[in-house]
């Protein structure tokens, strides 16, 4: 009983954060001369109003789910991996290469190999430099993962802008991947591919690893209290490397799914910062794998609905950025909301 109410309360604060953000967003709209009601109606319709929009929302959520899971896994291990963006990039690069350069494979195998390439690339990007540096020199992962993100983005510029991965022609894009590496579309004529199932499966895997395996036990022990973990005989350094590698693998798969399911090639600067939004997704979800799916869906819906809101209500989509910013603020400051809750409760007690 007690556990259940505790969980309910834990969910209440992020929910309130979202609602408050929408409310403040409405005030901002009013102040800039837009009527928030039709705008939000358009936002909702744009995100969920038609099957096509639902599919688009889900498609936009998939990379956020996967990168969000990656960040959540690292957070649970006490590691602030803010480099999911870079791991996403190297995952995309490796997958794209396997997608067009490796031929003659049956589709299932080709997809599997391409996904594996993305996962491995992301894992190495997280584990090799930031993981080892953190484990053996104590260099803070916030710095190193961020730096590796810059390296990854510059690497993609190098590869695509006249580099070895540029397709013939002058456009900075890679060749198309082979059709044998395409993830099948779940809904024709949309961008929603079987990547959705990969994301759902990844959440199951993340949850199983964290809650049901000895590796997850070690990771969480280190995350909660590295001293106690060392006292218990856990190899903190190795666990740190593994955790960052695992985290990077999720982000790498996100990049892979985006290439195999949506873009089918690598574009120069093609991400909208999924790896950064992922941090907020994980924070909003309190690093719970299931909640990460929900939080990713929320942000996917916001970005999908934003375009439609601009299209049909004429409200600049930047206003949705404002709402997202406010959500981030309230999550960062969820102590404020917890405090507001406590206060109102105290009021009631005093009144009673």
């Amino acid at each position, binding site marked *: 009983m007690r556990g259940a109410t505790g969980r309910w309360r834990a969910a209440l604060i992020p929910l309130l954060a979202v609602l408050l953000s929408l409310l403040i967003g409405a005030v901002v709209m009013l102040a800039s001369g837009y009527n928030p009601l039709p705008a939000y109606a358009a936002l909702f319709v744009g995100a969920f109003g038609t099957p096509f929009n639902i599919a*688009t929302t889900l498609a*936009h959520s998939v990379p956020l789910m996967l990168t969000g899971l990656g960040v959540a896994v690292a957070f649970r291990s006490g590691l602030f991996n803010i480099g999911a963006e870079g791991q996403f990039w190297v995952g995309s690069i490796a997958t794209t290469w396997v997608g067009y350069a490796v031929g003659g494979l049956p589709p299932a195998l080709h997809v599997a190999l391409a996904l594996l390439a993305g996962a491995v690339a992301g894992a190495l990007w997280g584990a090799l430099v930031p993981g080892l540096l953190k484990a053996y020199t104590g260099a803070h992962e916030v710095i190193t993962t961020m730096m590796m993100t810059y390296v990854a983005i510059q690497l993609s510029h190098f590869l695509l802008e006249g580099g070895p991965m540029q397709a013939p022609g002058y456009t900075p894009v890679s060749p198309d991947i082979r059709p044998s590496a395409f993830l099948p579309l*779940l*809904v024709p*004529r*949309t*961008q929603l591919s079987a990547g959705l199932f990969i994301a759902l499966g990844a959440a199951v895997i993340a949850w199983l690893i964290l809650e049901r395996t000895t590796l997850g036990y070690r990771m969480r022990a280190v995350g909660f209290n590295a001293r106690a973990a060392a006292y218990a005989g856990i190899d903190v350094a190795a666990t740190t490397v593994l955790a960052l590698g695992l985290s990077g693998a999720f982000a790498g798969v996100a990049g892979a799914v985006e290439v195999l399911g949506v873009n089918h090639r690598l574009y120069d600067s093609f991400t*909208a910062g999924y790896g950064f939004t992922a941090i907020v997704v994980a924070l909003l979800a309190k690093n719970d794998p299931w909640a990460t799916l929900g939080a990713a869906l929320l942000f996917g819906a916001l970005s999908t609905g934003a*375009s439609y809101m601009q*299209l049909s209500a004429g409200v600049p989509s930047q206003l949705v950025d404002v709402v997202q910013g406010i959500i981030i603020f309230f999550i960062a400051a969820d102590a404020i909301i917890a405090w507001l809750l406590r206060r109102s409760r105290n009021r009631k007690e005093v009144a009673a």
Partner: protein
Amino acid sequence: MVRRRPALVSLLLALSLVLAACGGAPAAKTGSPQQGQQAASGGKTIRVGLVTDVGGLNDHSFNYLADQGLQRAKTELGIQGQVVESHNQTDYIPNLTNFAQQGYDLVIAVGFLMTDAVKTVAKQYPDTKFLLIDDQIEGMPNVASAMFRSEQAGYLVGALTGLIEKQHALPNLKGRDQVAVIGGMKIPPVDAYIAGFQAGVKAVSPQTKVNLVYEGKFDDPTGGREVALSQIAQGSDILFHVAGGTGTGVIKAAESQGVYAIGVDADQNYLAPQTVITSALKRVDVATFDVIKSVRDGTFQPGVHWFDLTNDGVGYAKPVAAVPQSIVRQVEQIRQQIIDGQIKVPATVSQ
């Protein structure tokens, strides 16, 4: 009359989503004879949707100019227009689809980044017309693409430059009879401008030396500034940039050294009013307006539309007052000669 069938599409999508949910059954095939319930909205008001690329509306270049064309069409042609900005590569298809689904008559996609997306969506919505700016799509009955003969614009600003050098027509020239072109990357759209510029200078002032450098990036103002400073130090006093964001560094360098620059794509005089004497123009606004007008008039033509001096699709910005009128008159004559076909402008660079 434009036929729309969003209800049908929605129905099919719903069906396939349900099927997909039921254990990955094969998606429904299209071809149901059912017709859309919703009749085409009566009347002649043409609805036009514009999808920007990730640069957004404030890019002071293609997206901005396309919107200018749309706004002009709204006031002059009485059409309805709506803009959606893309934040992400994956936004292109949904944004284009949204307009098509809503029964817009024309959907404009700005920039070559959207070529793949336009091909995909245009196939799915054969009753919607599409315009792709700055890349070619051929053989689709509902897609027009706008291409620009930018070498002609390059030729005109080149001729202007050559005449100024020859006549020492501006104050503070170094008298070395030397100018520079700074390109972003060596790609055909850039080289078209450059080829025209080289030919234009040479035609009026054969002894003027034109240095050519590729900076390597389109988004590196600092690098642009350094390259420009080095060119100025070597004696160049007019710098033509074809380098996007990198070019702002070129312009700033010219301004700081008291020499001159020529802008590209849009009129960039506002960046440095004393320095940018003119700009080579790609009239994306004109292209946008013209295609919108053709849709309204029922004269829409699919395939590649070339925009050049004859249809005001390229050109040069009105030179600053310091440039002698005699020179401007001469450039205008050259313009007419190109239109008349007396001058053929090359589109490939001679090294």
